[in-house]
């Protein structure tokens, strides 16, 4: 009888303990969204152009100078331009992160920006001989 009692005790031991778990709070998963802009403009000789945008949450911004071409013929120009991220100020964009680069298919400028209004600026770095039609593709949160 003792052996059978031990068997019965063993069976009860494997019964799962009563769950008295506290309710868990539902978790919110935020999927970061990004906006991509292709900014096409004409940079005058010795001048600059800028584009303002609003970063909704602090994060990484990146830009690619996709093309530089003659506004008249459309022929590609192998001319480096200055590209920067900054803050709109006065009648310009006060650049804070700069790069001077040729057009290429790849990220040439990346940085972290806080939430708020920022701008992307494209300027003649001193190599233009005439105005240039440029396309910049940039992404921000």
């Amino acid at each position: 009888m003792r052996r059978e009692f031990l068997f019965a005790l063993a069976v009860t031991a494997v019964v799962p303990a009563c769950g008295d778990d506290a309710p868990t709070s539902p978790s919110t998963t935020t999927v970061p969204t990004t906006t991509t802009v292709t900014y096409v403009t004409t940079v005058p000789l010795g001048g600059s152009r800028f584009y303002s945008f609003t970063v909704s949450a602090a994060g990484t911004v990146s830009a690619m100078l996709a093309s530089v071409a003659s506004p008249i013929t459309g022929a590609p120009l192998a001319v480096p331009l200055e590209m920067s991220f900054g803050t709109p100020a006065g009648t310009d964009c006060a650049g804070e992160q700069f790069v001077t680069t040729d057009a290429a298919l790849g990220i040439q400028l990346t940085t972290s920006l806080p939430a708020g209004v920022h701008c992307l600026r494209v300027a003649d770095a001193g190599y233009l001989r005439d105005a240039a039609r440029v396309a910049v593709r940039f992404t921000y949160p």
Partner: protein
Amino acid sequence: MDHRSVDQAFPPEPTIRQSAAILLAAVLMAVVTAGCDGETPTTPTDTTTTTSTTATVAEATISESFSGRVAVGGAAFYSFTVTANGTVTLTLTSVGGAGVPNTVWLAIGLGTPSGEDCGIGSSVNTASGTTAQLTGTYAPGVYCARVWDIGNLAAPASFGLTIAHP
């Protein structure tokens, strides 16, 4: 008839001791699980805390002058940074140019830089003067003041705009 094969097909009757053990196990399981109350999951409740805050509205302490030119049907804008929640005022101080009467009305507005322009939130049509024509309260951030032709110009106009902000 082969009695051995019949015995193998049907398991033997449990003994009294085995039956007692099974009964004991069942009783113990019932006792243990009786402590489990059938609680249903509760729905988490959101606690909303209402706080009362009094926003301080700072006075304009910075004055910026924007002198520009508006083409016929065109616009110009100027960006500035508000560093504290406070009052922003715009004063169109002058309008002029060849073929442009100094009494001509233009539109002035406040907004946020967006794309290649200034996205306007509030605006007013006005002639130039010495007192602020547009006033608003703004949180810290980057804003812009815009001046544009509302159809009155027959020639490009030069203008002076004073922006006061915290």
